[in-house]
């Protein structure tokens, strides 16, 4: 632990900057209703006459719209801030669900072993043998066919969270299972077993706190991946609807105008997305190295 706190004090500048960048974007997105110049979900606040105006700094820019407007005359900056909020909420939601489900199943598999372990881990193996995007597309696509309301602004986020989490839980389960197996063999677990505490209590109160470290690292790295998957699904047209866009939806809308030289509708949301994911990734990479004892010694 001593070396851990020492490396915590020596956080590289790039990680500081990346962390601050990611936090700034997350904060701006969270506060979007307060700081955005317009409300992009309010149909009365924008005018089709303002459609496709270029950013303010270009020759034909309009002073009202810093980053220009989209095809419906929405202020792009406001749409991006609201969009980032949608993206982060869905990404965060997927990470939370995947972490809870994965940790629970990992605890069960590691603690009980035997057929419980075999069933959970084989299902995980099968899921991991397919790429995230394929599984997510399938879940989102089938959900839309089964009930048409799935593409509405209310239901789409829930479908997206499920579609992403169905692949991501396996990673948590694998990590927690391995850690639980190690912990279960330790004396303190044997002791509480002898006392006769119920299994549920042993797992949640005694083992869980000792296996949480790696879970937080995976969660950070997965947040970046989940935001990217959501953006990809929305870009492909099975994500958030244009009336309530995420960053991916905005890029999808912008993509239709790229050929006519209207570059800003696609590029500004894309830039924000890349900055957000890059910031989270840099912090996640650093955390992973910090928790990896093989690398820690090398300094």
């Amino acid at each position, binding site marked *: 632990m001593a070396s851990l706190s020492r490396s915590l004090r020596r956080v590289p500048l790039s990680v500081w900057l990346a962390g601050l960048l990611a936090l700034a974007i997350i904060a701006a997105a969270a506060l979007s209703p307060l700081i955005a110049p317009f409300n992009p979900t309010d149909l009365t606040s924008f005018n089709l006459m303002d459609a496709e105006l270029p950013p303010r700094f270009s020759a034909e820019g309009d002073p009202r719209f810093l980053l220009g407007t989209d095809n419906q005359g929405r202020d792009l900056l406001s749409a991006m801030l609201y969009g980032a909020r949608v993206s982060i909420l869905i990404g965060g939601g997927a990470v939370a669900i995947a972490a809870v489900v994965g940790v629970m199943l990992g605890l069960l598999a590691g603690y009980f072993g035997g057929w419980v372990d075999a069933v959970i881990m084989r299902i995980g193996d099968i899921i991991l*043998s397919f790429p995230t995007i394929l599984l997510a597309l399938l879940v989102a696509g089938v959900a839309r066919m089964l009930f048409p309301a799935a593409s509405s602004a209310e239901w789409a986020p829930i479908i997206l969270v499920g579609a992403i989490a169905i692949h991501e839980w396996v990673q948590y389960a694998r990590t927690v299972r391995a850690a639980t197996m190690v912990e279960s063999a330790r004396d303190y677990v044997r002791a509480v077993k002898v006392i006769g505490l119920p299994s549920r209590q042993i797992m949640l109160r005694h083992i869980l706190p000792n296996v949480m470290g790696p879970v937080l690292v995976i969660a950070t790295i997965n947040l970046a991946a989940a935001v990217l998957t959501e953006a*990809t699904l929305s870009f492909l047209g*099975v994500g958030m609807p244009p009336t309530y866009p995420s960053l991916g939806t905005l*890029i999808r809308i912008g993509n239709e105008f790229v050929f006519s030289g209207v570059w800003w509708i696609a590029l500004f949301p894309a830039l924000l997305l890349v900055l957000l994911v890059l910031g989270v990734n840099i912090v996640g990479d650093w955390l992973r190295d910090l928790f990896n004892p093989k690398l820690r010694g090398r300094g």
Partner: protein
Amino acid sequence: MLRFLIARLGQAALVMLAVAAVSFLMFRFVGDPVAGMVREDASVQEKAELRQALGLDQPVLVQFGRFLGRTIRGDFGVSYRNQRPVAALIAERLPATLELVLMATLLSLALGIPLGVLCALKPDGVAARLVQAVSLIGISTPTFVTGIVLILTFAVTLGLLPSFGRGQTVQLGPWSTGFLTVSGLKALVLPSITLALYQLTLIMRLVRSELIDVLSSDYIRFARARGLSLRRIHFTLALRNALMPVITVTGLQIGSLIAFAIVTETVFQWPGMGLLFIQAVSFSDVPVMAAYLLFVGLLFVLINTVVDLLYAVVDPRLRVKAS
């Protein structure tokens, strides 16, 4: 070994059965297959007859058995949208996707291996640090953003390369190839770069870490002590061993690339299987979706099983662990 072989093949069969079951459930319970096939003014009587002719009045398990039989014969039904057999649609689109994946794989190897070697031999050099930084940006940039930026730069602004479609293709029997015409090759440039970038970072990082491992091993130190030239040590002795896992991973990744091509094909309107699938998703074209799922599922199961079996042949320790 036999026991391992049987267990592994059994697992593969089980996965395929599960994939087939998902496909079947989509057919059976997503929308009404009859409604998609009859005229709009068909009577109840006609619909009932069609239902009977299609066997939809049979028990679900019997229907699943028939579905499996049809699937094994390669009969995936008729696309709701195009009114053509799905098997023919997929066969038509397959060459486009495979040519794209092939180009992307070659490109990522041709760039990834030298860059990985560079990063491993001079880990603190300016070039290596630059490559590392760019690769971090690379994994943080979604494929479709790369594609849009490439289109904006090379197609819209510079007007150098086409941004959609395959260009002119030449028909070689059932295979349509874009490799033989100038417009076909030009059309391949941007999509294959976009798809390759996804793979490039992975190969680069792998080459780097493998080569660093190999370079610190005893036989390399011995070669140094013998006074062999650095060039010979690095490229003849070390790189050859570092490349073994790279070859495995490249093989394993081909399935992922085919799945990931969905995004690239959408950005560039590339007429491959991925575009077919995503159009099927937005039009609720169940037969096409189910067939794509079965095809890709089979591909993944085949690749994973073959790799596992090859590993077991090469490394006997895995056999003991499995049984």
